[in-house]
């Protein structure tokens, strides 16, 4: 079967979802009012609160939420076959992510542009806010660890991508300064930067001497290096240390100096990456060689694990932070929320969709697919590499040589992951400082101490899990925990929207059902993994690190269930609702 059919199916469902379901939600549930004075107008300060055209805001929202995560999750989840992954991405986007992103945007707009964390405090109480902070803390910790592993892994697998990725840093700083001092447009300098990066990618793909291959520098994969570490282990260790040192500096710099200009370049990369792969798909017209359901995927059941393996791309709590943190302050008209929030989620759905397509068309036949996805652990560690090779194969459809395309797609994924890592370490620093203020620990409120705590704990977490290549190579095992904490964050946001709708006397099933679904799946998956996989029950090996982290997340999940049950069964009249609602 041609893979184009997968894209056609996804596109049709996305269009129907946007055209009909989001319209129903907008008119009957959230009841958007074109005359409502949005915070962008009410508090217009020219900085945070600025009315912005809906297409511009959608583009900004989409580029903020789309990153490496919607690529990695589906690339792993195709282990169970393309059927479950495709259905979850498509239906999750339509019925869960769209409603969630749209809902958090509307909820925030109706509450003076406040963020989900503040609204948790306002709608439920201080305990909910603390729970929210702890869940984000766990989430960003997982993001830091997993993405540090992702980047290190890609640098080792695709050494040609190292120089172009590092070239992006001085280029971004140059753009940041040029625009800040001269107030010019970023378009031209960022395109020049991109040309330099991709030009260097062509050179590094063709000239092996320009490939920074640490494994070969250390004498090969099997060589013994310092502390008895193998060549691969040492390479992982060195890359992780370099990344963490980079994160320390990057996350303490003002955002306009490095993060923002790099984000700008990455937005070009997102458009280019999606363009290359979808066009390549049309011209190459590859067959889907992977099975719809993988009969050999027996070591882990897709139910419930797939629903936490694919978080971003089906539903992600992180989107709620973007919706309520920045987009809600820039919404021109309340009715624009449907396009910005819901269609923003659809945009990410398209990214997840092409990730599935790239992985299921890569292999010559089902046998090769099953060999590459021989176990869930193999899918976790190799999924992203398969996506890059699959994406490169699609790119050959528009005439780009496979080796150069692989380097460019690796650069795109690493750039996304690096920006996520930088933002996430920065966010972790803020949360540590906020928790320091909450629990009266002034030392934690100092920027450099909070950053040090963030960087050291993240580095420790990524180095601790055991991997097939030894020390430092096992960070991928944290992926399900990342998915779980992201889903729990989404569940909290959906709970807040449900509470808000309930208090307004509206039908809240559209948010309650995805919330219950997420909570059931995450609690089920965590109970299964914590008790049967990580605690050592039933003869499996005990994994203390995952057991502890999984138990903490499980406790948070149960805590959310209890709060949700209490709040949604409460019949008291609310008093903390905006009168304008």
């Amino acid at each position, binding site marked *: 079967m041609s893979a184009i059919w997968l894209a056609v199916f996804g596109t049709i469902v996305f269009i129907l979802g946007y055209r009909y379901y989001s319209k129903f939600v907008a008119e009957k549930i959230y009841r958007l009012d074109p005359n409502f004075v949005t915070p962008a107008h009410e508090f217009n*300060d*020219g*900085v*945070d609160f*600025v009315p*912005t*055209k809906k*297409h*511009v*805001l*959608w*583009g*900004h929202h989409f*580029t*903020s939420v789309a990153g490496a995560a919607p690529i990695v999750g589906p690339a792993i989840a195709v282990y169970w076959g393309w059927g479950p992954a495709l259905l979850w991405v498509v239906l999750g986007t339509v019925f869960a992510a769209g409603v969630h992103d749209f809902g958090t945007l509307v909820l925030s707009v109706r509450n003076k542009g406040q963020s989900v964390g503040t609204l948790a405090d306002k709608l439920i109480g201080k305990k909910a806010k603390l729970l929210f902070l702890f869940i984000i803390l766990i989430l960003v910790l997982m993001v830091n660890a997993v993405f540090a592993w992702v980047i290190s892994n890609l640098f080792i697998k695709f050494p040609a991508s190292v120089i172009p990725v590092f070239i992006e840093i001085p280029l971004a700083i140059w753009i940041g300064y040029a*625009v*800040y001092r001269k*107030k010019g*447009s*970023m*378009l031209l300098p*960022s395109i020049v930067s991109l040309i330099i990066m991709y030009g260097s990618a062509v050179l590094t793909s063709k000239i092996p001497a320009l490939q920074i291959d640490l494994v070969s520098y250390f004498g090969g994969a099997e060589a013994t290096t310092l502390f008895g570490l193998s060549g691969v282990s040492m390479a992982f260790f060195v890359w992780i240390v370099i990344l963490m040192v980079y994160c320390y500096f990057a996350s303490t710099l*003002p*955002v*306009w100096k490095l993060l*923002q*200009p790099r*984000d*700008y370049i990455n*937005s*070009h990369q997102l458009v280019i990456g999606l363009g290359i792969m979808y066009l390549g798909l049309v011209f190459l017209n590859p067959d889907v060689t992977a099975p719809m359901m993988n009969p050999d995927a027996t070591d882990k059941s897709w139910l419930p694990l797939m629903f936490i393996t694919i978080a971003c791309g089906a539903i992600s709590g992180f989107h709620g932070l973007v919706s309520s943190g*920045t987009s809600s302050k*820039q919404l021109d008209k309340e009715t624009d929320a449907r396009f910005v929030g819901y269609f923003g989620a659809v945009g990410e759905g398209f990214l997840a969709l092409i990730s599935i397509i790239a992985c299921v068309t890569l292999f010559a036949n089902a046998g090769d697919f099953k060999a590459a996805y021989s176990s869930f652990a193999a899918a976790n560690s190799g999924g992203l590499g398969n996506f890059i090779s699959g994406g490169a194969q699609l790119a050959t459809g528009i005439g780009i040589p496979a080796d150069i395309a692989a380097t460019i797609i690796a650069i795109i994924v690493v750039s996304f992951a690096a920006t996520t890592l930088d933002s996430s370490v920065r966010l972790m620093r803020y949360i540590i400082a906020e928790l320091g203020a909450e629990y009266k620990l002034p030392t934690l409120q100092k920027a450099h101490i909070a950053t040090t705590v963030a960087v050291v704990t993240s580095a420790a977490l990524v180095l601790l899990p055991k991997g097939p290549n030894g020390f430092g190579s096992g960070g991928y095992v944290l992926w399900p925990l990342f998915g779980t904490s992201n889903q729990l964050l989404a569940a909290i946001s959906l709970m807040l929207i449900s509470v808000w709708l309930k208090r307004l006397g509206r039908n809240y099933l559209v948010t309650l059902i995805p919330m219950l679904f997420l909570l059931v799946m995450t609690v089920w998956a965590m109970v299964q993994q914590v008790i049967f996989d990580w605690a050592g029950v039933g003869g499996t090996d005990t994994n203390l690190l995952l057991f502890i982290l999984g138990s903490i997340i499980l406790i948070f999940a149960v805590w959310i269930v209890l709060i949700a049950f209490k709040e949604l069964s409460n019949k008291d009249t609310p008093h903390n609702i905006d009168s304008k609602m």
Partner: protein
Amino acid sequence: MKGIEALKRMLQLYDEILSVNHRTEIARELRNEDDLFLLLCLSETLGLPNPAFYYTLELYPYMLEKFHDWHLRMGMEKSPLTGIRCC
């Protein structure tokens, strides 16, 4: 010609989309600098000796306009100065 116009409009929209975030951050950075400058201008009123007081006094009409938003941003719900009763 129509095609070129359409291309120009598309590029403009694209640039606008990507610049939204950056514009916010640059505006925030500039506002932070302004906030610090306002604090320096108000230093005499706040009890800190200011050798340039005579000159900064001339800026008071402009500062008054910005004062209310400034003290809100600094985390003070009401005006901290008895001399300036903005709220």
